């Protein structure tokens, strides 16, 4: 196989920035992700075997259950590499399993948004863990400050929405966060990060222009502290599942119904959360040239005419001389006989990428073999995403 070296202008390193749009809808205690409805399967209540609103990693156990179809599950054998599943604690790994034992995990692994509401002066370990991070972003906006004259996130009421990174990638794209709050189909409030500095500013509602919270773009958290009434005074609802003591609609109750013990089936109230993720995909583009007069010979056995086998006479006193072997003429002729004039033609079907030690590290296959004649210049553009 001929090897050809890439020139200095044949390899390009690029980064592809992609911004996938994400939309969550929360209604009546059910979270909908990307407008996907609940699809009941033959063996599970919701395919692909996770509740709607969840992302299934690997998507392996689509419509499977343990009793009728069996579940796909991962396992490793405990050995010197000490590889283990996160679901097995280090203590258990060391004491409960012998070398050679099988450690099993389970699929599906799933993720979705979650919500934590903290009343006044309540214990809040999750918010406390974000203290340094919030203070770090004070250079973007004073509203990030954990404690300031704008409020103390350690004691005030906080509505914390957590977004796992599998949803958004590297970070949430600045300026794309859009939270809307509907009651009976009427928009009562809308928050957007129009300033692109993490402040969630009310663009529609009872207190337009006010900041109701902040977004941690890189970490995937939304903290809402805006406690003003979004509806007319006197209108209250059972957000806290504490009827008859109801509370007025505010940003503190945005997302009620996301995996928390509040009133998950509150009628007529729904929420929509939209944002774009941000992902950087490094790519390498390689240009593989097949110039005129190059790559017009193949080591494939079919390159030779049928029956064109070499003499293989060997022996202690035998002189061996390989006979010339005929290359198959594949040039199309309008006549069966005579055939067309011979040309060296190959059909390029694959391009191998080798490292400097000539180890094959990648193969690019073309959709259909490309005809290569002596007078034809070809350039194949190979793109590799990481």
């Amino acid at each position, binding site marked *: 196989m001929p090897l050809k070296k890439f020139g200095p202008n044949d390899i390009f390193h690029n980064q592809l920035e992609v911004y996938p749009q994400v939309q969550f809808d929360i209604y009546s205690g059910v979270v909908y992700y990307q407008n996907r409805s609940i*699809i009941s*399967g*033959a*063996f599970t209540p919701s*395919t*692909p075997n996770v509740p709607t609103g969840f992302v299934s990693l690997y*998507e*392996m156990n*689509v*419509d*499977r259950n343990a009793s*009728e*179809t*069996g*579940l*796909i*599950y*991962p*396992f*490793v*054998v405990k*050995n*010197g*590499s000490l*590889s283990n599943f996160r679901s097995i604690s280090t203590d258990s790994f060391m004491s409960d399993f012998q070398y050679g034992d099988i450690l099993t995990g389970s699929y599906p692994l799933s993720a979705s948004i979650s919500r934590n509401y903290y009343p006044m002066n309540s214990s809040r370990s999750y918010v406390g863990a974000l203290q340094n991070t919030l203070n770090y972003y004070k250079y973007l906006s004073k509203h990030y400050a954990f404690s300031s004259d704008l409020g103390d996130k350690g004691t005030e009421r906080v509505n914390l929405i957590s977004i796992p990174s599998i949803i958004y990638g590297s970070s949430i794209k600045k300026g794309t966060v859009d939270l809307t709050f509907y009651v009976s189909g009427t928009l009562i409030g809308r928050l957007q990060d129009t300033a692109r500095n993490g402040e969630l500013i009310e663009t529609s509602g009872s207190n337009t222009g006010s900041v109701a919270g902040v977004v941690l773009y890189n970490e995937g958290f939304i903290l809402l502290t805006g406690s003003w009434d979004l509806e007319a005074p006197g209108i209250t609802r059972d957000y806290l599942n504490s009827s008859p003591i109801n509370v007025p609609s505010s940003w503190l109750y945005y997302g009620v119904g996301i995996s928390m013990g509040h009133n998950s089936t509150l009628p007529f109230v729904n929420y929509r959360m939209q944002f774009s993720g941000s992902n950087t995909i490094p790519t390498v583009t390689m240009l593989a040239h097949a110039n005129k007069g190059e790559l017009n010979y193949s080591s494939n*056995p079919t390159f030779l005419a049928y029956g064109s*086998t070499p003499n293989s006479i060997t022996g202690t006193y035998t002189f061996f001389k390989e006979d010339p072997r005929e290359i198959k003429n594949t040039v199309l002729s309008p006549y069966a006989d005579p055939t067309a004039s011979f040309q060296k033609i190959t059909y390029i079907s694959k391009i191998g990428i080798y490292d400097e030690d000539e180890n094959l590290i990648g193969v690019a296959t073309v959709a259909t073999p490309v005809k290569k004649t002596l007078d034809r210049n070809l350039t194949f553009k190979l793109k590799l995403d990481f």
Partner: protein
Amino acid sequence: MATTFKNLLSTDMATTRTLLHEAIPITGTIVSGTYQDENIKYYSHGMFESVYDYPYLSSSANRIFDLTYGYASDLSGAANPMNAKKLNIYNEMSLVLNGANLEGNIPLFDADGDLSVTTTDKMNACIFICYARLLTKDEIKKGSYTFSYIDGSNGLTTLGDYGAQTDYRVNSPAGEYGLLYTSSVAPYGESYGHIYYQAGIAVITASNDIWPNALQSAWIDTNDITGACNDVRNMWVDNNFNNTTELNSTIYFCRADSGEFNYSSNQTYLSESKIIVKAGDPSNNPMAYITTIGLYSADNELLATAKLSEPIQKDPTNSLIFRVRLDY
């Protein structure tokens, strides 16, 4: 930004390989019946059919395997349905899995895998199950494959690559393969097929009495390829195997000896030019809390960072070794 570097010696680095497996069950409930064949994709060329784990029009569905049938030229008959395509399928599979012989001809599948010696155990008609890479990953684990079906003549038949952990063949250009037996107890007796571990293809004889005679002949001269595949699917009871994914890791042993890394360049380490952790007494030992380990290139470029779940106290009275694992 680190200001103190320590070179990793060759003895501080080790490479390991971990084999991660998945147990894959493919029951008959998935392959036929449950979805009224909405999970079976048929093609106009009719050369094979694809089986999905859910109706394939759903975005949730995954293709799990392709099923096809073929025979060698000695069973060829001009009147047979899809005769040329059955021949092509067999020849293509044989060329890929057996390779051409020294004469440049396509050999027949051989039950015991020995292409040169025996001539009476050729599998001249075969069922081919080509598993999706999603299921087989790097390779199928040797000794884990079983395939069960039921028919009216023989009842339940189970084929497995019993004993293949140590006894497998290596004379295929497609990688290693094991032989499929009906007996799980050594000596296993006659082989009825092959399972190609790296290629993820099962080849099961269709010209042996493990299938009813009427079916064998119907697949040749009455049914097209789709008909033969549907017969196999409808008899399908269970299919299990384990796949393997190879995880390569490099382990860096980062050593902090007693006299090392007891100070920090962190701004919070000092207050009024005094080391805070000494609590105002200069005679106290210095102390640092290690939170992050950075791996740098020879040019001091930061390549990777390892975070500890909690800061580890370091002072001159202790010596620490951090085991940093990088998976590829």
